[in-house]
């Protein structure tokens, strides 16, 4: 339909197999969705799809910011970049013309200065020095939001493309304009009245998860060797709100406003998100909130993905402790980190190797058992031995170790309403499929993933937290029906769910129908996610990926997180075959023909 799904299909169909991610033949695809720029809440997202230089797999990196809206105003749904400029350039996209401009004066500037020098009142995508220097996990910045993962900024740098600027005065017109306006207004109310999107996210931002994950053994600590950090509260959302918060920050047209503006060193800067706090905090055994804010700002200026960067720092610390690499970086010490971040961006000294990511470092210096990545993508801020379904999600995720492509199962296991036992394997394979499909469908409609929270009716979850026998039965039945739900999603045709989903739970779906003029049933909505996920998978299969890449390091699959809990590891040997079977994939992790026929997907 749009964003992630559209990007995956375009890349799968347009790109021949075996293209080097940093060669001119790799495509960089920016997509929007039908509702982008129409005034619907939290639908400003744009998506960047390409073949990742970090993993070799498909990467779909989704971002807020305002670029998607401005691309629409220029009159375009998507942008596809192929080739390589002879010298640094930036791309100007207007209503009537597209031009390639010289970026000689911009090359070498950080992301903030670059944005300042480009035309005002436009949407901008920019890379920093890290993207120019082909650091394998360079990001793309739009306003203060970031398409961060798996080196989309590296691909932009490989094309000598410093920035893309879009703008115009066109406005997409919804099919049923008046009804659409009313639906969007009601949708905004649903978001404002929900305790997550209208309460905790605005109050604490994504950083609210620090204390939740820490309490549930799911905060990565000391390079994912533990799941709790005694000083986690010092870098938590609560502490950030109480001591640093200046004001909230919202993406274009969003009523949630989960972003933070914080003060550091007399300057107002973007506040760190959960992942950054977890991975630069507990995972480095660091409790210095001010230092994390500064490193986060530094990484944004240089154009580095903070998840991969922080994991790389943690891995080097452990390698150094074990005497495997010459570095002074140490757990619990902030000294040298800022310099190391700069060295990565400019590929100086050991930074040259660190710029290649954790998998490369493990290949050169050893430590594969504790090299925290999947398919070469460093893991986000959730210790999966405290939430084993989330661990399965990491292993099978199409873009490599990713919480969103993995389904974000930790939400029902450890840091949200906790509906299922975090360390059991029962029902987990199916729940991963269910949640992956939901998030994929939401992304494909162009909505922020946070809009999915409205699906969880507050009353139902409050009732669940009353701990009555009936409430316990509700939790248990959700867990035990997990595999059945996952199987049904992959197996049954969409016409078996012919109803329109209730507005209060899925306002995106009705709004989308009014925008496009095409009715969407629950079955069709879920099929979007199924189709998108399987197309991404087909891209990876074509590039040689199979079950041997759906894995995690031994630290997470074989070592127990807690000696007293024999289930505190991710038993992929048990979970993977079940996941493949329920997905309709063969034992090698490839979608079967029967499934592709049912989803009307043509293999290329």
């Amino acid at each position, binding site marked *: 339909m749009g964003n992630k799904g559209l990007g995956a299909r375009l890349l799968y169909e347009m790109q021949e197999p075996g293209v080097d991610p940093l060669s001119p033949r790799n495509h960089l695809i920016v997509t929007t969705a039908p509702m982008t720029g129409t005034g619907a809440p939290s639908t400003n997202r744009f998506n960047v799809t390409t073949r990742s230089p970090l993993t070799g797999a498909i990467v779909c990196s989704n971002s807020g910011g305002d670029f998607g809206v401005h691309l629409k105003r220029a009159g375009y749904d998507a942008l596809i970049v192929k080739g390589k400029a002879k010298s640094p350039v930036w791309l100007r996209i207007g209503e009537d013309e597209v031009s390639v401009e010289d970026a000689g004066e911009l090359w070498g500037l950080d992301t903030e200065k670059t944005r300042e020098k480009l035309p005002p009142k436009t949407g901008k995508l920019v890379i920093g020095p890290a993207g120019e220097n082909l650091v394998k996990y360079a990001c793309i910045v739009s306003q203060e939001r970031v398409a961060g993962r798996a080196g989309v900024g590296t691909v932009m740098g490989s094309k000598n493309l410093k920035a893309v600027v879009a703008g115009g005065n066109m406005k997409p017109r919804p099919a049923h304009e008046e009804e659409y306006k009313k639906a969007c207004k009601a949708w905004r109310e649903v978001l404002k009245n929900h305790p997550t999107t209208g309460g905790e996210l605005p109050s604490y931002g994504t950083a609210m998860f620090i204390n939740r994950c820490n309490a*549930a053994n799911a905060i990565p600590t000391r390079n994912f060797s533990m799941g709790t950090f005694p000083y986690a509260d010092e870098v938590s959302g609560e502490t950030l709100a109480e001591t640093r918060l200046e004001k909230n920050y919202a993406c274009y047209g969003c009523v949630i406003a989960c972003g933070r503006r914080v003060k550091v060193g007399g300057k107002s800067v973007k506040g760190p998100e959960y992942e950054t706090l977890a991975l630069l905090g507990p995972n480095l055994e660091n409790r210095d909130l001010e230092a994390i804010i500064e490193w986060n700002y530094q990484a944004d200026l240089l154009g580095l993905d903070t998840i991969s960067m922080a994991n790389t720092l943690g891995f080097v610390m452990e390698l150094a402790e074990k005497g495997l690499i010459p570095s002074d970086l140490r757990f619990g010490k902030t000294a040298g980190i800022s310099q190391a971040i700069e060295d990565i961006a400019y590929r100086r000294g050991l930074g040259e190797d660190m710029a290649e990511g954790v998998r490369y470092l493990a290949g050169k210096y050893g430590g594969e058992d504790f090299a925290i990545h999947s398919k070469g993508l460093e893991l986000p801020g959730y210790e999966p031995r405290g939430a084993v379904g989330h661990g399965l999600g990491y292993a099978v995720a199409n873009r490599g170790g990713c919480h969103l492509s993995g389904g974000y199962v930790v939400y029902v296991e450890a840091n949200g309403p906790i509906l299922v036992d975090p360390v059991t394997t029962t029902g987990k394979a199916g729940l991963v499929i269910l949640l992956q499909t939901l998030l994929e469908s939401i992304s494909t409609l162009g909505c922020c993933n946070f809009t999915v929270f409205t699906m*969880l009716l507050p009353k139902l979850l409050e009732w669940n937290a009353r*701990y009555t026998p009936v409430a316990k039965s509700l939790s248990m039945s959700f867990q035990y029906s997990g595999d059945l739900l996952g199987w049904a999603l992959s197996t049954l045709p969409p016409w078996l769910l012919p109803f329109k989903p209730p507005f209060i739970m899925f306002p995106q779906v009705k709004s989308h129908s009014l925008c496009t003029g095409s009715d969407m049933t629950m079955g069709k909505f879920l099929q979007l996610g199924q189709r998108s996920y399987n197309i991404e998978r087909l891209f990876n299969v074509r590039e040689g990926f199979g079950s041997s890449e759906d894995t995690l390091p031994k630290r997470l699959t074989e070592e127990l997180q807690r000696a007293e809990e024999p289930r505190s590891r991710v038993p992929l040997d048990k979970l993977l075959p079940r996941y493949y079977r329920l997905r309709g994939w063969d034992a090698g992790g490839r979608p079967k023909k029967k499934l592709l026929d049912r989803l009307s997907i043509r293999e290329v």
Partner: protein
Amino acid sequence: MVTVKFFASLRRASGVTGYKSEARSVAELLKEAEKLYGPGMAASLKACTVLVNGRNIHFLKGRRTRLEDGDEVALFPPLGGG
């Protein structure tokens, strides 16, 4: 002694980050917290997520879960997001 920790809106409602308790069960602890921090906390405590040493009490014995010296009890509002 049991260590009790409040998070998110429960921290705002109570005005403290936590306290030490001698309660012997989760039910007893919740009643005690309501008494200590007033009626403003009552509604929040009726439906809050309770973890004892990192385990949700759904997977222990619910509110009848016994508490031992040195246990850590974490209390959150039932919903979150991130």
